[in-house]
């Protein structure tokens, strides 16, 4: 078997590079080599199953030369947006935040991969490449709060999980080990009310707070603020955020066994500590931030990765069992040539991102019973506020956010408005105003539109002084709001809109509910009070314009929101096949051997950055997939009219597929 050629350098892992394409049988096919797919492949490969991972994008990032190429692409990019380091790929296109533009009188225009027809824009991107969107994540790993799992029952909105925090707690710990989380569990417990087992510590000590965090904490800690005249006071507290980022290992971890940080993929003994490059989004130069390539480097040899393989369809038989997938292989992302192949397996796991999973199910006409595929699309709409402190605060240093205010995530106010988490942003006005580039242009008199008249501009020492004084005092707050599941926010496919390989592009219908907009109004009110406490000069402005596709008016007030990159909810889990797409194992109700894993399964997203929860769910599903496979491979002794018996010891000859009727979908809860 020839090793698949990898551009530049050696494959990172013990896994196999892709063989030439011919139909073969595997125990499991995983669609997508992002965070979820990589973790599922890791667990199942370690348990001895033969896993085929099909990744639509390229594998250029999993070698050190490929990583350096991405760094240079990032340095040279005009706009340093999340996808800027990663090469465009016409065969497996990715959405980009630059695909959206606001219109002068309000409203927006979308071009690029998504077709958008909603009242408001869905402003989040993702990345189709080996490693997935987590290649450009910020790396924050807060757990969801127990009450986030039951928002319908407790607060009367959205959808409830068929699981609770307690069901997931052990998997949270497993995910914190796999991703390598640095944090202060005692602080998380005291400040947020997260239950942990007694004596728990994270693998690594918390990432140090920024100077800005300390400045904010000195003014805010213990101060009650009201979000409206008639609401009770909420006490502010700056809380350190857990990160999947290498910090100082905690010797007490794992019963005193400690923890060894995982360094860069493809370069030994490198990246075992965050060194403050301040570019976590879009790329960590030393790979001190977790990315799935690190896990792939430890994959068992039974895991086979094929990149540049776009799954176009899930194949199922007449009884509803998934038989495998059809995929399109291509060599050159720039050339419109592909060949079509099939791969077969006992179990198929879709792990291609919430929107791509939904697209695949829709195209394959699978999991249709509930009518929920593609619906309940969610994100964390982000409201930004920004201003100037009275003295320098050291912006553009360290991870993008090291602390937040968690006081508005929970509690009875959720009955009327969306809850939110406040991230203290360490990178000045980079997100709200594209600083520092925009500051330079403004002082030089260069407007965004080359047709507009130019200011005279400031030069020399005066330019230098004013830049230093202005940028040095910049700070901003990011309010991440919970979006609830709504059937009207959805992904569909339309045969008229296709990408170059002929696969449908996602058609997105998106809007924000009034309860979400009330959350934004409350967030802005809190921001106003916080700026007052900080004695900061508020420079926040919302209005229509080319850089404000997310502008809207609500109750006489202007707002602009952004996407957080937290796409979720397109194949939500539930406890009934009539109202949800997957069960609590992320297994399609309609197809006992087809899983759809990832944020798409989440019925509610709370206010936590979702990757840790997604990882915990993937690890939990891996356990059930292992049980399913074990069951399928159990020696069959007598079976009237069935296929011949198979020998489990010989390993990987699949047993006869049981009919769904002979083995009803038993729910066994942990």
């Amino acid at each position, binding site marked *: 078997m020839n090793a698949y050629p990898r551009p530049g350098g050696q494959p990172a892992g013990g896994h196999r590079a892709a063989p030439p394409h011919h139909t073969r049988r595997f125990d499991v096919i995983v669609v997508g080599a992002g965070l979820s797919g990589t973790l599922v492949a890791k667990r199942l490969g370690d348990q001895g199953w033969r896993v085929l991972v099909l990744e639509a994008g390229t594998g250029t990032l999993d070698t050190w030369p490929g990583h350096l190429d991405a*760094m240079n692409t990032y340095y040279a*990019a005009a706009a340093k947006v999340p996808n800027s380091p990663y090469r465009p790929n016409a065969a497996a296109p990715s959405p980009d935040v630059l695909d959206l533009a606001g219109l002068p009188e309000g409203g927006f225009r979308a071009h690029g991969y998504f077709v958008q027809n909603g009242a408001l824009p869905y402003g989040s991107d993702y990345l189709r490449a080996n490693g997935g969107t987590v290649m450009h994540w910020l790396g924050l790993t807060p757990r969801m709060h*127990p009450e986030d799992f039951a928002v319908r029952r407790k607060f009367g909105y959205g959808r409830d999980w068929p699981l609770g925090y307690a069901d997931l707690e052990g998997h949270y710990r497993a995910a914190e080990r796999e991703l390598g989380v640095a944090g202060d569990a005692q602080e998380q417990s005291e400040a947020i009310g997260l239950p942990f087992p007694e004596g728990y510590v994270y693998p690594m000590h918390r990432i140090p707070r920024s100077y800005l965090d300390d400045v904010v904490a000195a003014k805010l800690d213990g101060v009650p603020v009201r979000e409206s005249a008639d609401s009770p006071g909420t006490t502010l507290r700056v809380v350190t955020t857990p990160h999947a980022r290498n910090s100082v290992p905690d010797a007490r971890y794992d019963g005193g066994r400690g923890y060894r940080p995982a360094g860069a993929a493809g370069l030994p003994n490198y990246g075992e500590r965050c060194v403050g490059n301040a*570019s976590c989004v879009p790329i960590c130069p*030393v790979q001190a931030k977790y990315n799935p390539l690190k896990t792939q480097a430890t994959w068992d040899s039974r895991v086979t990765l094929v990149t540049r393989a776009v799954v176009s369809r899930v194949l199922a038989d007449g009884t509803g069992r998934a038989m495998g997938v059809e995929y399109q292989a291509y060599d050159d992302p720039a050339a419109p040539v592909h060949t079509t192949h099939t791969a077969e397996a006992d179990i198929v796991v879709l792990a291609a991102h919430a929107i791509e999973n939904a697209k695949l199910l829709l195209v394959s006409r699978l999991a249709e019973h509930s009518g929920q595929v593609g619906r309940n699309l969610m994100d964390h709409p982000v409201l930004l506020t920004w201003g100037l402190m009275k003295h320098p605060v050291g912006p553009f240093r360290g991870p993008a956010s090291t602390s937040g205010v968690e006081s508005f995530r929970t509690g009875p106010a959720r009955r009327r408005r969306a809850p939110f988490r406040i991230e203290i942003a360490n990178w000045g006005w980079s997100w709200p105003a594209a600083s520092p*580039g925009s500051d330079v*242009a403004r002082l030089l*008199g260069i407007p965004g539109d080359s047709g507009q008249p130019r200011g005279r501009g400031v030069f020399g020492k005066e330019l230098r002084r004013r830049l230093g004084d202005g940028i*040095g005092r910049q700070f901003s707050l990011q309010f991440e709001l919970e979006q609830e599941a709504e059937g009207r926010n959805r992904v569909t496919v339309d045969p008229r809109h296709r990408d170059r390989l002929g696969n449908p592009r996602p058609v997105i219908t998106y809007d924000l509910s009034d309860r979400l907009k009330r959350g934004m109004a409350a967030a802005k009110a809190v921001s106003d009070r916080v700026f007052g406490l900080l004695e900061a000069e508020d420079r926040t402005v919302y209005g229509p314009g080319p850089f404000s596709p997310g502008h809207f008016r609500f109750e006489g007030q202007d707002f602009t929101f952004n996407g957080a990159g937290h796409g979720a909810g397109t194949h939500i889990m539930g406890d009934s096949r009539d109202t949800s797409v997957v069960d609590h194992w992320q297994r399609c109700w309609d197809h006992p051997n087809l899983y759809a894993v990832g944020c798409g399964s989440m019925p509610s997203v709370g206010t936590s950055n979702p990757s840790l929860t997604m990882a915990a769910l993937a690890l939990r599903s891996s356990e059930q997939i292992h049980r399913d496979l074990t069951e399928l491979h159990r020696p069959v002794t007598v079976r009237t009219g069935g296929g011949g018996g198979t020998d489990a010891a010989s390993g990987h000859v699949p047993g006869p597929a049981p009919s769904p009727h002979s083995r009803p979908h038993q729910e066994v809860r942990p």
Partner: protein
Amino acid sequence: MAPHRTTSPPSLPALPTPTPPSLPAVDGFVDVSVRLTGFDSFDLHATGMAALYLETALDQVGPEAFERFLGELDAAGGDPDRLEGETSRDIARAIAHLWYLGVWPQLARSVHSALGREKANAPFTASPEAYTEGLVWRTFHGHPAGAKAPGFGTWSEPPPGAPPVPRAAAPERPVEKPETKREGELEEEREGNTA
């Protein structure tokens, strides 16, 4: 204000210079850049970008307009604030922008037309290193995002000119025994979901 007018059609573009700018030309460019940026010549040379930036400016506006810019700046006593011709003033803006960010910006549309440029009026980064050598980061004692990392935990220290603030001590204790109430909530969660 008398904007420069071209009375004759723009001349054919000069052939690309086959050799990099000569050392004296780079020195002269750095002298001008000192006035545009407010950084001294040692700092500017030390970026390693001076020759590339001179080439970029020459390539973008053409040698004639560049010479006129130098001449007008000289006539203004070397003070870019006193540049009155809009073309030269826009070239001054562009060169300062290039030094501060590593990015050649869009020229004013009118200047773009007046120069008769036969290339897109689009911003671009001169090279990956140009981004990391941008001067803007130094104005506030920073480092370019994604390069020249200052080291673990350095972001906790006050930047120059900032007052120290009390730092909340990191407790870093293991999780204590959960309160009874919290234990109860856990139970409720479990029961509520297995029912």
